[in-house]
């Protein structure tokens, strides 16, 4: 059974304190790894897709990386507006549009 595990469950950072969120996956036939941001009461907002080990993508203070077993979302010098829940999801080969989501890391950035 495909599994996606995110850690930590919650993370509290001071403004400017860089850190990383982890997404480890055990799946068959990874086709892509997605990162989303979700604000309270809202739907997930797409951030990145990574397709192969070694790939990196950046957007403002966020950088996502991918290895054969895990993905990291690095947050550099975070601001309070980066506070949200970050979800990762593994897109795999399957009979339907099989995407396995993790349960998310809730990030709080304190001014």
């Amino acid at each position: 059974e495909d599994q996606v595990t995110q850690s930590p469950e919650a993370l509290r950072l001071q403004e400017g304190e860089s850190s990383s969120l982890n997404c480890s996956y055990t799946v068959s036939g990874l086709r892509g790894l997605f990162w989303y941001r979700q604000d309270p009461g809202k739907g997930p907002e797409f951030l990145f897709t990574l397709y192969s080990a070694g790939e990196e993508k950046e957007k403002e203070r966020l950088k996502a990386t991918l290895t054969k077993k895990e993905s990291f979302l690095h947050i550099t010098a975070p601001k309070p507006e980066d506070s949200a829940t970050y979800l990762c999801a593994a897109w795999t080969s399957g009979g339907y549009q099989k995407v396995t989501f993790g349960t998310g890391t809730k990030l709080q950035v304190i001014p």
Partner: protein
Amino acid sequence: NAGVTQTPKFRILKIGQSMTLQCAQDMNHNYMYWYRQDPGMGLKLIYYSVGAGITDKGEVPNGYNVSRSTTEDFPLRLELAAPSQTSVYFCASSYSSREQPQHFGDGTRLSIL
């Protein structure tokens, strides 16, 4: 630019009642999806559609039905509501399969009592 619009935002149902969750997108996307999100759990795919007239089951389809008569609309039907269907429901869309859901609506929060 509205994106993906879901209605209603909140609803309380009694056990055994029926209802339809509405989803509309104005981006001319081919693919549309319904997910449910339960506390402490990852999003689960209920049904998806690759185009008008074509739908297929996802991971957790039992108790739900869908139809796709137009490119824009993808309603989700609950026929006999059960407490286990209490959840937040998200509709999503993407232009192609490779892009996967890039656009989500803001959800419908459904409680069944």
